[in-house]
């Protein structure tokens, strides 16, 4: 209960999206993977949108990791990501196991992987 939890944001979370209520893409998940879709970040973006693009410029991150590093709620980051995807500045890849969850082959591989970690 220490550390980052008490740090203050410069912009309140609800202002970071310009006050819009809902993401235009409701399919975004916490584990949607974000990839950069632009080599240079265009001027004129809001600081929060720029923050997302700067964060993922060096490599891919799940949406939830981006929210943690940016210290923004997941619900806010979903709105930012939806806008950036619409603008063609960001790729968002849904997690392979969709709403139904992973298939049996994947689960068997998870099991094998966990067993192999036992010392």
């Amino acid at each position, binding site marked *: 209960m220490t550390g980052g*939890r008490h740090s203050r944001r410069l912009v309140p979370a*609800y202002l970071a999206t310009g006050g*819009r209520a809902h993401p235009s893409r409701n399919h975004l998940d916490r*584990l949607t993977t974000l990839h950069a879709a632009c080599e240079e970040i265009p001027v004129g973006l809001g600081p929060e949108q720029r923050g997302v693009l700067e964060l993922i410029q060096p*490599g891919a991150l799940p949406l939830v990791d981006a929210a943690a590093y940016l210290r923004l709620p997941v619900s806010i980051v*979903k709105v930012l990501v939806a806008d950036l995807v619409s603008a063609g500045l960001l790729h968002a*890849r849904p*997690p392979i196991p969709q709403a139904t969850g992973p298939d049996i082959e994947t689960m068997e*591989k*998870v099991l094998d992987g966990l067993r192999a970690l036992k010392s």
Partner: protein
Amino acid sequence: MDSARSSPDPRYLTGNDPVLIKLLIAGPFAVGKTTLIRAISEIAPLHTEEVMTQAGAFVDNLAEAEHKTTTTVAIDFGRLTLPNNLVLYLFGTPGQRRFRLLWEDIAQGALGALVMVDTRRLDESFEVMDLIEEAGLRYAVAVNAFPQAPTYDLDTLRDHLDLRPDTPLVLCDARSRDQSLDALIALVEHVIAHTHLEPA
């Protein structure tokens, strides 16, 4: 005391578009969720702060935030890379029903849930198990063996917790990586067994 400090250096995904698998580590406050995540995760646990209305709805617009008192819920998570281009994500999930929307958002597409139990507060785990069942997830139960907590044999605990006979129930010191891995293995075995029995 658990603390989840955000690392300043992002840990980017490696591999070729890895498959991300969600697991829930669910349980009441201070039951050891973050301790278990820390024991298993390859990164220092991160957290998000979810802002919600008192009614449990996500806050993402100005009008709502101005007119209602909001609650911030911290959700800790960790990551574990496995062979075969798989990455496990472990989400520490609070048990309260008033955060139900948040719950459903995290549970979406999850492989299953590990419910953590403190033998001094068994009743606090009932709400958690109800929420998991309503979300349609399979679960296993891990009793975090706190030194000062009373010990019961597993049959007595199973009885008190009113578990189905096939629901895995394991003892687990959440500080131990090996024991925590065993608890996850019991969970995944259980989910696989039932997926074989009940093909989609």
